């Protein structure tokens, strides 16, 4: 379904600026327009490194809990204010900046900051852990394992072990890793006092593993548990929605992601669900096209994977999807990145890419039932 570029750019502003109807004058003085932090800490004139760190950590936490990227901007604002008033970046602050960068998908820049932290503090377990995470995300499994080992060496042995098991789950040890991680999660001495966020994280991690092991029911259980614990986090919702769509359960998928303030990710899944339900989805599709266009104009690159999916499944444009999926593959190499690239390559009949992916999977001994199904029995 071709969308006229001219119409898009003309409507981009009309819609961006005035969505729904015209601006209005509310009639009720008591109408609530926005919720804001109570007693917000107004920016103090000067910030100490400790103050800056505290504020930044709060913002990053809010970002993770609410999936609200504004907090990343505000975190950067704190850092900016601190530096402008003459502050120097301590290793602790560099670590925070690395987290911000990672959240914005600037993975290489994040690694650079982490390396600087490690250089100043070789025993900084957090820095090693973040490094291991990014390396795993980028498909550098060997390096990730080494970094995980450093986490253990720095005294955080149980975290180091989790790190190692998670990485090994990508290199031919999926089933064993699942078992051991489950045991670890269950045996954690602090389990009863562990907070919801950590618990939620364990469940979503185990869910991901279960998906790769071809155990969708188990995965669903874990995802639902994660959602129950932290309903504001969108990760588990999104992944479960994808799982349900793959199982041809669009109604259930839709109920997970529908809502008034739909994120781009959720809107995409809503559109996909509507398509499966044979309901019209052009409103959602148009809206998404505008949002991606707007994001591109402001220089935001975090949507590439979703955009590839959008082009492949909603616009039926495998070529565009392939370009985006390849671009995405350059920055991150998680199983979902592999899969969208593979699907796009198959649709566009790009045999070379299919072969490359197949090789990569073999080389790393990746276990993922979805990948195997897409590549066909011959490639296992």
């Amino acid at each position, binding site marked *: 379904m071709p969308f006229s570029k001219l119409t898009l750019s003309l409507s981009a502003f009309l819609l961006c600026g005035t969505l729904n109807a015209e601006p209005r004058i509310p009639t009720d003085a008591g109408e609530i*327009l*926005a919720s804001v932090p109570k007693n917000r800490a107004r920016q103090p004139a000067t910030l100490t490194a400790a103050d800056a760190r505290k504020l930044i950590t709060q913002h990053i936490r809010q970002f993770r809990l609410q999936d609200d990227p504004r907090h990343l901007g505000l975190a950067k604002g704190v850092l900016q204010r601190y530096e402008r008033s003459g502050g120097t970046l301590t290793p602790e602050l560099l670590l925070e900046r690395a987290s911000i960068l990672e959240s914005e998908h600037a993975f290489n820049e994040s690694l650079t900051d982490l390396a600087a932290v490690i250089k100043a503090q070789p025993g900084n377990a*957090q820095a090693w852990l973040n490094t291991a995470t990014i390396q795993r995300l980028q498909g550098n499994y060997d390096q990730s394992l080494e970094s995980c080992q450093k986490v253990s060496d720095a005294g955080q042995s149980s975290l180091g072990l989790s790190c190692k098991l998670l990485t090994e789950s990508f290199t031919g040890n999926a089933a064993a890793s699942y078992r051991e991680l489950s045991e670890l999660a269950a045996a954690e001495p602090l389990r009863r006092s562990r907070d919801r966020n950590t618990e939620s994280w364990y469940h979503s991690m185990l869910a991901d593993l279960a998906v790769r092991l071809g155990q969708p029911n188990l995965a669903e259980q874990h995802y639902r548990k994660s959602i129950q614990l932290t309903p504001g986090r969108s990760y588990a919702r999104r992944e479960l929605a994808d799982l349900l769509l793959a199982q041809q359960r669009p109604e259930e998928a839709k109920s997970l992601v529908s809502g008034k303030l739909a994120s781009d990710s959720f809107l995409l899944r809503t559109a996909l669900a509507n398509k499966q339900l044979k309901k019209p989805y052009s409103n959602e599709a148009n809206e998404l096209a505008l949002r991606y266009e707007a994001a591109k104009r402001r220089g935001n690159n975090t949507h590439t994977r979703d955009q590839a999916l959008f082009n492949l499944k909603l616009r039926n444009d495998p070529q565009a999807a392939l370009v985006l999926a390849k671009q995405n593959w350059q920055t991150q190499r998680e199983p979902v990145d592999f899969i969208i690239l593979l699907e796009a390559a198959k649709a566009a009949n790009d045999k070379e890419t299919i072969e490359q992916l197949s090789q990569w999977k073999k080389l790393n001994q990746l276990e993922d039932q979805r990948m195997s199904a897409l590549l066909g029995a011959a490639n296992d």
Partner: protein
Amino acid sequence: MIKPILTLLIFSGMMLPTASAHKNSDSYLRIDATAAPLSVQWSIAIRDIDIALPLDGDADGNVTWGELQSQQAAVYAWAFANLQLQQGNNPCSFTPGELLVDTLSDGEYAVLRFPANCTSDGDYQIDYHLLFEYDPNHRGLLNLQLPNGSQQSVLSPTEPSATLALSGGNKATTAARFFREGVWHIWIGFDHLLFLFTLLLPAVLVYRQQQWQASESLGHSIKSIAAIVTAFTVAHSLTLSAAALGWLSLPSRWVEAAIAASIVVAALNNLKPLILKRLWLLAFVLGLIHGFGFAGVLADLGLEAGNLLLPLFTFNLGVEAGQLAVVAVLMPLAWWLRRTVFYRRAILIGGSILAALIGAYWCLERLA
């Protein structure tokens, strides 16, 4: 305490980046410059305003319409302090206007609608720094409506200023536009075409024994046509450029009259050939005058000082292209007809007389 550390470690270290449920901070700045005063509509997220200006009067964690309204003056003052608009290097002045509310995909926005008064003509310059000190990811999404279309720009901490030219468009659209204008203006430039064709009519003939006869040599005719067209083209390109760049200037009344006169000259020469072999020279000399005629047209299309070369070049190209198109159609026809009495009498003689009369008429009319 181990628990919070563990939480932080796991949370920070092993969480995969998630997609956003909300979006980054943007404000939407729409300026309608199609009339004076300018109408501005600036939509700013209410939660963004609260970062700089406390809006939650009763500290209950919610901003109500009443609370926002009561801060209307402060909101306007803050907004105006973070935006500068100039036209032609002179600042435009803002006056506070209405306050409304709009619902966008990521929540409620305050909509400021106000007029801007600009005192001079020229390019617009916008300087924007709303919220950058609090959130370097904030962007100002600017849409400027001009008479000839709209332009968009994204304002960021690294590019907080935008200059938007009145004539708008980028190099490619400018080039295309002026090329089109060149083609169009030669096609509607009857006096230019009339002159050229009057001069070209005999190109498929030779003057022997006091009369025009069909030329037997295609090569000769083609060379002749080529020489005349090229000479004409080069000549009017030279003077067009000189006039457009401001090096030479002639009063247009005289130029127009001279152009008309050139038609008469060309026509008379067909009737009583004084110049036969060096027709291209005649084309060149008279072509110089025609160039001045185009310069006026070009100026009317809206050139900016300092941005002349591309429009000039492509306009010229357009003129040549338009010219060649017509020549390519009509000259083969002339060649085909050259033996006929119809061509040698009616078209050449009759046509030249008619051209001379028309030229003379225009000349007198333009001088009057």
